[in-house]
Every structure is written in structure tokens, then in C-alpha cells.
């Protein structure tokens, strides 16, 4: 009886998670092996046909390739900016509180709203980005930012970086604030320069936090629909489609549900790999907050 109390306490949350997150996965797996009508009726088992169709579709490969670029560019860009920003925000200076609030601001706004505002700001004729650049004398013709796939995709990547910075900085800041101050004092006494301190103390000690920031960002960016969807809907001419936008179009525009289910499953597989990686990273530096040392024994069953 005593033993079942914690079970009873987690059961409701477990049930909801299984119903809303677990069941759709199974349903997708089933749907992916079925022929599906435009209106969602299943018309019998077709085995791997849906997958074969996906793999024979050049748009899938283009989207996959673009997803790779999108994820890589956004994650690398985000980390490259967030690391110095976190180091600055971790140091003591006038207005640090204000700086933290401003840097975190994009996190508070829904991606949809951000994308809507940027879509307007990037308007090819009267957008205020063009206004800014022209008034500053940097260009004398407005640029049609979203009219060609190349510039549109670049701009979308930049917006992607911008909205990923707050979360990443937060993780890195958490790591930096846990950094042992005496290690730096010891290093200074040992004659280490600023660069040496960064290279031999900060970076190695931050490694777990950087790893987690990378994996989480990869997962989030890989999954992110609103920016590209709102700004270009994958256009022009599918030129900015990534897997999620392509998947969404297949499912809810073109009614190719079997194919969409197959892509969902492929993405699920990719996510699973990253999630395992994340779980491995988290459990490696998991200093369990559970009450007793002895917990460890049953924890890792």
C-alpha cells in the first residue's frame, strides 16, 4: 500500500502524456503503412510504399538538405553569439539587469508574432529594414528580401538565431554562475592570462553545458515551423522548404496523409537519436537532487 503512493501520484500525468504524446506516435506508425485517402480514410495496408514514395521525391531530399543547413547554421550561429553574451552577462557591470532583460526579450514573444513582424519589416517596398538601410545611406534601392529563396532563407536563419539566443544564453549562464570562483583566483595566481583562463578553465568546465545547449537547440531548431511558415510558407517555389514545412503542406494542403505520416516517422526517428544523446548527456552529469545517497541504487534500474 505504502509503495503504491508515488505510483498513484505520477499516474495521472503519465496517463495524459501517453494518451496525447504516445498514442499519436503509434497512430502515425500505423498510418504510414496504409494507403490514405485525401479525407483521411485508411484504405488498406501498403507496406513500405509510402516510404518509397517519400524517398523517390526530390522535394523531400531538397527539404532534408535544407533542414540540415537550417539546423547547422542556426545552432552554430546561436552558440557563437550566446557564449560571449553569457560571459558578459555573468560579469558585473552597470545596467546588467537591464541587459539581461533585453537579451531575454525575444523568448517572451511567440515565434509567430516575431515572424509576422519581421515579414512586415522585410517588406520589399516599404519595409522598415529597407527604410533604415536607405536612410542610413547603405543602399539606394529597396531590397526584395523575401522574393528570392537565397536571401529569404538567409534572413530566416538570422531570425532563427535571434530567437534562439535567449534560451541558449540562459543555459550557458546557468553553467557560468556555477563556475568555481576560486579556480579563477588560483589561475590568476598561477599567472594565467585572460585567454588562458578561458581556454583551460572556462571551456572545459562549460563543456557539459555547451553540449546540452547544442543538443537541445538542434532538437528545437529542427522542429521549428513558425518562422519559415509565417515568413515565406516554404516559398518561393519551395525554395525555403524544410522538413517541417514540407510535412505540414503534405498533410494539410495536399492531403497526402500516408506520405506525411511516413515523413513524421522519419523525423521521429531522427529526434529519437538526438533525444537519446541528450538523455545520455544529462544523466552523465546528473547530480541527483533526490534525498538520499541510497537513491542512486534504485534510480538506475
Amino acid at each position: 500500500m505504502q509503495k503504491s503512493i508515488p505510483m498513484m501520484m505520477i499516474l495521472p500525468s503519465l496517463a495524459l502524456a501517453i494518451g496525447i504524446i504516445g498514442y499519436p506516435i503509434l497512430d502515425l506508425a500505423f498510418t504510414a503503412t496504409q494507403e490514405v485517402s485525401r479525407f483521411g480514410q485508411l484504405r488498406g495496408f501498403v507496406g513500405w510504399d509510402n516510404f518509397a514514395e517519400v524517398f523517390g521525391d526530390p522535394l523531400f531530399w531538397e527539404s532534408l538538405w535544407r533542414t540540415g543547413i537550417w539546423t547547422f547554421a542556426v545552432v552554430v550561429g546561436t552558440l557563437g553569439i550566446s557564449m560571449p553574451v553569457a560571459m558578459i552577462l555573468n560579469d558585473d557591470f552597470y545596467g546588467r539587469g537591464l541587459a539581461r532583460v533585453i537579451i531575454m526579450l525575444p523568448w517572451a514573444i511567440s515565434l509567430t508574432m516575431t515572424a509576422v513582424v519581421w515579414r512586415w519589416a522585410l517588406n520589399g517596398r516599404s519595409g522598415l529594414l529597407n527604410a533604415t538601410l536607405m536612410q542610413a545611406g547603405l543602399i539606394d534601392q529597396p531590397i526584395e528580401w523575401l522574393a528570392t529563396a537565397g536571401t529569404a532563407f538567409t534572413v530566416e536563419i538570422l531570425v532563427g538565431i535571434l530567437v534562439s539566443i535567449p534560451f541558449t544564453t540562459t543555459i550557458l549562464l546557468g553553467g557560468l554562475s556555477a563556475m568555481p570562483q576560486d579556480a579563477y583566483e588560483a589561475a590568476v595566481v598561477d599567472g594565467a592570462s585572460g585567454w588562458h583562463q578561458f581556454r583551460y578553465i572556462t571551456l572545459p568546465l562549460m563543456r557539459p553545458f555547451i553540449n546540452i545547449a547544442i543538443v537541445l537547440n538542434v532538437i528545437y531548431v529542427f522542429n521549428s515551423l513558425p518562422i519559415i511558415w509565417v515568413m515565406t510558407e516554404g516559398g518561393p517555389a519551395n525554395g525555403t522548404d524544410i522538413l517541417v514545412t514540407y510535412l505540414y503542406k503534405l498533410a494539410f494542403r495536399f492531403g497526402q496523409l500516408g506520405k506525411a505520416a511516413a515523413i513524421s516517422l522519419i523525423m521521429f526517428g531522427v529526434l529519437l537519436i538526438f533525444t537519446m544523446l541528450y538523455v545520455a548527456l544529462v544523466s552523465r552529469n546528473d547530480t541527483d537532487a533526490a534525498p538520499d545517497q541510497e537513491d542512486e541504487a534504485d534510480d538506475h534500474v
Partner: protein
Amino acid sequence: MTMSKLTRSVLYWLLLSPLVVVILFPFGVMFVTAVRPRDELFVYPPTWGFSDFRWENFSEMWVKTNFGGALMNSLYVSISATAIALLLSIPAAYAMSRYRFAGKGAYRIFLLMTQMMSPIVLVLGLFRLMMSLGLVNDLNSLVITYAAFNMAFTIWMLQSYFNSIPRDLEEAAWMDGASHLTSLVRIFLPLAVPAMVVTAIFTFINSWNEFVLALTMMRSSDDFTLPVQIYAQVAGRYQVEWHHVMAGTVLATVPVAIVFSWLQRYLIRGMALGAVK
């Protein structure tokens, strides 16, 4: 090292300034567009300047775009989802924080995995699920999915805060003659209130901002939540009333941004305590 705080501050602000400008730029765009007269939207050459503050853009927008309806929908969905997520998370987080039990590690990993599963990957399966439950075009479909997708986060946040409430307070209460229920109600919960409020607000913001599921499940404009409603005024229209759209985004984002700014340090703390460690 030897730099004075003043020099350091100036240097840091200079280094941060490009980022600060880029972050604040969209806010500037929002405000400047929202209060502009309609016929100064599409001028050539484009310019920041405008002739007149048109505050009535906001009231016009409110009426023309059914902003109030979408606002009520967003409030209903976000508040209900937050309440359900919290109601289910509090006991789970308490169990994770206070009990040893078989499968605790497995449950923790399961939660991590649900957090990684974004709605977009499951959206087709979810849509089919809601179809079969007859919940498409029903705001309650969003309520339960938001609750489910936020639960990993809320359990995590709550657990990390609960861990910081010393266990011996409850033990002391038991020694003082309190039953488990009494110690929960009179000792634990009063101490956990701040954590629950903070977690609730973040869950609310997450639900408030969600887009993909709302776009998929809500097919009739009466049921749109704010993000979908604003998106709907931009997508697939020949003529976009940008001053109304921007007025809408200002109203939909600014209150949330203010609350978030006020609370962001708790998020940093929660992350440092729970997520990363």
C-alpha cells in the same frame, strides 16, 4: 581584471549594442506601424517617420479583426491548460522529489523524451486523434494537448523547486504529530506556492504563444487563438492591413513580455537547478 567597473560597463554595452539593436528593432517596427495612418504604410521611399499618431488604429483593429474573441479564446485555452498541467504535475513532482520508487528513473527519461517531441512531428497523429474524439474545432482539444506538452516542463520545474524545500520540515511536522496530509497542507504547500505561481506563469506563456496545433485544430475563425488570428490576417491575403496587424501584435505580446521580463530570473534559476543539472 584591472579594468574599472565603468570602463568595463562601457565596453560591454558597446559589445552588446548590435544585438540589442536587432532585438529591439522588431518592437520599434511594431509600434511605429501600429500608430501610423493607413495611407502612410506603403510610401516610397520607405521611412520611419510618419505624420500623425493614430491611436484609434487600436480600437478599429479590435472591432474589425474580432481581436476580443481571439483574446478570450487564448485566455480560455491558456488558463485551462495551465490549470490542468499544474494539477497533474504537482503530485508527480512531489513523488519525484520525495519518494524512492521503482521506475522513477524510467519516468524521468520518459518525461525528457516527451519534452523533445515537438507538436509538429506529431501534428498529423494528433489531428487524427482529435478527429476521432470529435474535438476538432473545439478549444478543449488545445487545452489537453497544451497541458500534455507542457507537463514535462512543469514537473521538471516543480521538482527542482520542491527539492530545495528541505525534507526535514515535513519530517519535523510528522514528529510533531501531523499526518502526511496535514504536513502537506500546512507545511509543504504554503512553502511551494511561489514555485507553483512561477511555473504556472511560464506554462501560461507557452500556451499563449503556441501556433502549430492551434493552426491545425481550429478551422473556424471564431475559434482562433491570438497567434493564429494574427497570422490569418497576413497569410494568403492580397491586401494586408499592416497597421492593424501590428496593433494586434502589440496588444498580444507586450503584456506577456512585461510579465516574462519580470520573471525571467526565476526561469534562469529553475533551469540552473533542474534542467541542466
